[in-house]
């Protein structure tokens, strides 16, 4: 019985939150990795792009709520998300046209494009803060739980409760659908194939008549879509705060690099590696230990690292991978 209780505690505090967080990171990292594969630079503005998409979604959600539209048990934000996606994609396409295209034509060094993306990051940062401010915004509505801890305890008679929040289920379902659609697009459609060809070998792709501008446009559109979905899911699951989204840049980049920059499969794997490492290392294991080894009574919470050091986890994994396997787990673009 204690073993079951320990397993339930583990699922409740590590597996489910880790999986949801991993899915959010994976979606973010997919955007970064796609831009890297096609445009060949690390986009520092990605975190703020996520914030922008989420901000638009929140705005539309508020409007929908004010006119009385809702999705019942599901959060209204899901209904508003398409608007956020369209706005973000348009914004990214406009940025590409006004800012990035010039440097692409010049064939500027990747590091220049990174600095340019820092400029874009500043602008998006300012725009988001001007419109929605820096405060925490909770915009999840509808039902909170699919299974609440108490229901679970009543139903199973176990001591330990297991809660499954709606936002976690939505995150996982949406992530699976999005990733499936993305891979279908990349492998089964002509456009997707030409994108992969362009990412693998630009010159060869150009020779075979693939239009580079078209590929770039689609890459931005996909990145905008993925960024908004990732941002909205993260916001529903936790809450929306512009600075947090900026800070997400680090685990997202870590995920993309750990998986291998330019490799979509790698980005997903990297997202889960980073998320589970963060959650397991910062989780206080006392609860699980109480069930497994009740005779041993430690004085601490059995937490390996304070939660505030979660950046250190992504970072340590990142450095380890870079030192021992610079191309990432899935052989992305070479170091």
């Amino acid at each position, binding site marked *: 019985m204690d073993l079951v209780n320990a397993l339930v505690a583990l699922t409740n505090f590590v597996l489910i939150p880790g999986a949801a967080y991993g899915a959010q990171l994976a979606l973010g990292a997919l955007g970064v990795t796609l831009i890297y594969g096609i445009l060949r630079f690390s986009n520092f503005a990605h975190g703020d792009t996520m914030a922008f998409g989420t901000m638009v979604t929140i705005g539309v959600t508020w409007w929908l709520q004010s006119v009385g539209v809702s999705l019942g048990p599901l959060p209204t934000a899901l209904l508003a998300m398409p608007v956020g996606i369209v706005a973000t994609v348009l914004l990214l396409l406009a940025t590409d046209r006004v800012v990035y295209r010039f440097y692409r034509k010049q064939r500027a060094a990747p590091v*220049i494009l990174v600095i340019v993306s*820092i400029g874009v990051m500043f602008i998006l940062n300012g725009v988001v803060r*001007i419109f929605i401010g820096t405060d925490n915004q909770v915009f999840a509505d509808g039902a909170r739980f699919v299974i609440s801890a108490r229901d679970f305890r009543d139903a199973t008679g176990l001591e330990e409760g297991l809660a499954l929040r709606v936002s976690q289920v939505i995150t996982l379902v949406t992530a699976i659908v999005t990733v499936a659609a993305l891979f279908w697009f990349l492998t089964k459609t002509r456009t997707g194939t030409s994108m992969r060809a362009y990412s693998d070998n630009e010159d060869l792709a150009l020779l075979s008549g693939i239009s580079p501008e078209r590929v770039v446009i689609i890459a931005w559109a996909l990145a905008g879509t993925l960024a908004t979905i990732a941002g909205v899911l993260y916001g529903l699951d936790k809450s929306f705060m512009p600075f947090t989204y900026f800070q997400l840049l680090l685990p997202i980049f870590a995920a993309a690099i750990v998986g291998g920059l330019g490799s979509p499969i790698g980005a997903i794997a990297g997202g889960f590696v980073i998320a589970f490492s963060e959650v397991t290392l910062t989780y206080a294991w006392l609860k699980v230990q109480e069930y497994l080894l009740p005779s041993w009574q430690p004085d601490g919470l059995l937490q390996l690292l304070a939660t505030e*050091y979660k950046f250190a986890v992504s970072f340590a994994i990142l450095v380890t991978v870079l030192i021992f396997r610079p191309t990432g787990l899935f052989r992305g673009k070479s*170091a």
Partner: protein
Amino acid sequence: MRAGLLFALVALLYIATGVLQSWSLALTIFNMGLVSAIMALGVNIQWGYAGLFNVGVMGFVALGGLGAVLVGMPPVPDAWSAGGVRILAALAVGAAVLVAAVLAWTRMSRGWVRTLVTLAILVVGFYVYRAIFDPARDAIEAVNPAATGYLGGLGLPILLAWPVGALIAAGAAWLIGKTALGLRSDYLAIATLGIAEIIIAVLKNEDWLARGVKNVSGLPRPVPFEVDLQQDPDFLARIGSLDPVTASSIAVKLAYTALFLVVLALVLWLSQAALASPWGRMMRAIRDNETAAEAMGKNVVRRHLQVFVIGSAICGLAGAMMTTLDGQLTPGTYQPLRYTFLIWVMVIVGGSGNNWGAVLGGFLVWWLWTQVEPMGAFMMSVLTSPLPETSPLRLHLMDSVQYTRVLLMGVVLLLVLRFSPRGLVPEK
């Protein structure tokens, strides 16, 4: 010529602030401008001389600030007797574990034995470290937590903290450089971005070190206090009919200005001398073509490490100066936008590779950063004038005026990159 004109223009901006607003404000901005110029010099040495993309400036600045606390604050004897020695021992154990793990990894022959031994050293070492560290930390933090709860500093003159801050930053930079340099430029960027976040997390959470988010305030000052000046008959006699409160505040600020100017002049002179020397030529050769420089027998990795350490040390120096000027260390206020990316804007706008450009960029961008808010407020009130006075949208937009400066920095950076990519004062 062009540089001279631009410097005169920026000087005019500061003078206009003094005339139109107040001299006290102009001096406050100017003092931070001096600090910013030194930070920009540090980044310029890394990026302009050697092409190293360091976006962890914030971390080194904060380490310099930590230096100010560790040198300037008086020691807390109770905390030292409670756990000072134990915590030092724990840190020594931690360092020894890391060294042992690295040695095991590099000295042993390849294979699963090596992996196991290294992992075992790390895991066992971690538990030993925590076993010594945790009780010592709790003991120190329990000593009068409202006022101290940390080990305190050495109680030495605060001016000594400036070189010490630089040394701490240099030490951290050496460690980071050893692992992260040699990575491709954007990997180095991500790595330094992460390091900076970790340094801030350490400062926020390790209360025994510098009180974490409880802040250390009341750092000793290298200049007299305003209150003392106001009661000093000598000072009162010298200012004549001026208001003693304003005069004392300006006198204190001028004293800081003088100190900072000396440091800036020194750093600038050294940077210029280094750039003109054979070493500077070698650095630029490496930046422009690593392979060719390597073929000429230059050790690129070593030179990169060297320049990374020097640049970070200068950022640490500026950080220590800034903390001294503020009189407090507040880890919660370090934000990458302000302490990393803004410094980058200064370097790019001023002209990367040119020290005078970096200094100019420091003064200009810092002035814009502080003075855009009033301008933004004006712009916003014009833009929102069609809306009624009490419209919630208008009130909200007027409220968020302070963020227009972030927006403007992005616009300035993009415009400079597009139309004058070598900056206002280009490298010769």
